[in-house]
């Protein structure tokens, strides 16, 4: 089958003083659409770096990367920006909502950036809000939203332009466990129902149970790759129905 994401021997090194620091040392991965993949590992092991590379926000220094059949490895920065605009939805740990804009305007930003007129973009964002059950907060400013609500606005923003790949960095870290679970349920649903690839980076063990697949990263290498769908299929189906 065609993979959503295919990494072969991905390497990433950063300048550090006189020398280099190897943060990713040959990552091999295939990720399928329709699945929620969790990448876990200790702090500093390279999770965020890997996520940035997968999303075309950072150019890797070795190996090859294909996302939906497109070779990111050979793209120029402006092409990468275009790729992000069309195919990637980012969800950040700290939400990064613009305080001056209402929830719905924030969520409409990816469409506005892609050239959709603001009114049309906001209408699309509103539909996303209804789906995520946050229609009632659409016109509020971020400062009047709880953390869980802000993260759901951020999810709406990551979905509004219908990207095929959703990348989330520690989406639950700033949330209490109830709000964190809600966010994970939403992400899982998005992956399952709309056949998109959702990748969540976390070291929050409480949310591992939502994963279809759990990849463990350590010191720049994949050390384990668990497929959880088979073992817990009935389990997660029950959750979705609830």
């Amino acid at each position, binding site marked *: 089958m065609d993979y959503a994401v295919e990494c072969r021997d991905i390497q990433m090194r950063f300048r550090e003083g006189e020398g280099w620091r190897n943060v990713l040392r040959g990552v091999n991965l295939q990720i399928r659409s329709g699945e929620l993949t969790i990448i876990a590992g200790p702090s500093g092991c390279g999770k*965020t*770096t890997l*996520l*940035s590379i997968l*999303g075309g*926000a*950072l150019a890797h220094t070795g190996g090859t990367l294909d996302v939906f059949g497109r070779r990111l490895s050979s793209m120029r920065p*402006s092409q990468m*920006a*275009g*790729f*992000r*605009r*069309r195919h*990637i939805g*980012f969800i*950040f*740990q*700290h939400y*990064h909502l*613009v*305080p*001056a*804009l209402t929830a719905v*305007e924030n969520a409409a*930003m*990816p469409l*506005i*950036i*892609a050239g959709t007129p*603001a009114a049309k973009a906001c209408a699309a964002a509103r539909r996303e809000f209804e789906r995520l059950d946050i229609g009632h907060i659409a016109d509020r400013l971020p400062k009047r939203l709880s953390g869980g609500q802000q993260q759901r606005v951020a999810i709406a923003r990551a979905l509004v332009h219908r990207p095929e790949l959703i990348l989330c*960095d520690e989406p639950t870290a700033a949330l209490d466990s109830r709000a964190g679970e809600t966010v994970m349920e939403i992400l899982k649903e998005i992956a399952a129902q709309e056949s998109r690839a959702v990748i969540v980076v976390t070291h929050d063990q409480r949310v591992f149970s939502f994963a279809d697949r759990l990849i463990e990263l350590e010191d720049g290498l994949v050390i384990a790759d668990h497929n959880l769908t088979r073992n817990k299929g009935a389990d997660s189906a029950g959750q979705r129905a609830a």
Partner: protein
Amino acid sequence: MLSIALKILWADAGKSAAMVLGVAFSTLLMAQQAAIFVCLMANSASHIAAAQDVDIWVADMRADYFDDPGALPEALVERVKSVPGVAAAAPYMRSSVVIDSTTMVEQGILIGLDPYSLMGAPQKLVAGSFRSLRASDAFIVDRRGYNDIWPGDDIELGRRLEVDGRLLHLVGIADPPSPFISMPLIYTSTETAKLIRPSIAPGFILARANDPAAAADVAAAIAERTGYGAFEKEAFSEITIDYYLTNTGIPINFAITITLGFIVGTAIVAQTFYLFVSENLRYLAVFKAMGAKAGQLISMTAAQCIVIAAIGFSLGIAGAAWFFETVPDKVAAFKGFYLPSGVFLKTALAVFAISLASGLLSIQRAVRYAPARVLQG
């Protein structure tokens, strides 16, 4: 995208206000100083525009001439009259004198005119008549000079004034445009002027052309026939202004103030814009991570700059306009001063350049910001 940029701008009311005020302040400073400068320079030639019935000015063109118009031979009047195309010619005498009003002693400027043709006389009289100048020891003073000599007094003809030790009587009040040098102007007949100052001689010869439209040609003919400088009045105004521009410290002083206004404005606007962009860097970077192009970030910033510049400029120029609307009526030194349209346009240009340049410099940080840093938190 642009409406988003403006929403972000207004959300930070404090910074927006600071930027608007910075722009307004430097607009005010530059426009007001530049306008005063332009008006002052124009005033250095105001006696030329004010002189009635004159098309051509004949002058000696030595370099230090304008501060101290030198002596032309009186016979030159007849020679000028004899040039074809000249309808009339008269002397224009000018000298600084000491005036003594019994309450104070000060410097004044004596202007001797031909009392019959009245060529070169100021065009407006507030009181009295030009005809009375024909009487011996009669004088007309400008309105501002009157208030200087007899502060607070109502206009009253027949008053006596000692000019260079000779007692004159007042027969009229003139209202010429404000002169470059703010000293009382004492108009007399050439005869009276000679009685006051026996050594006085014409500083200029004034001429009227048969056909005012051909004044420039007639001036050229006068110059050729007499060997003196002869200029149509607009050209002579320009020469006079040029003289003051190149031979006095006034332009330097104003250039310094105007430059300071520019620098202060640039500093305030650039700094607040830099802070503003810095604070928004996080969000601009998020837009970048979402795939926004550099051009989009730049046009967002440019839109913010233009709005700030437009509001700031409007406030500043309104302040300058208000100054020229109210102050010249109240303060004699600014009489007739106004806001020239050239100053308006050039200030607008400078202000928009400052705002755009500082905005675009600030946005460079966002343009260069690596999108992956947003994910790093």
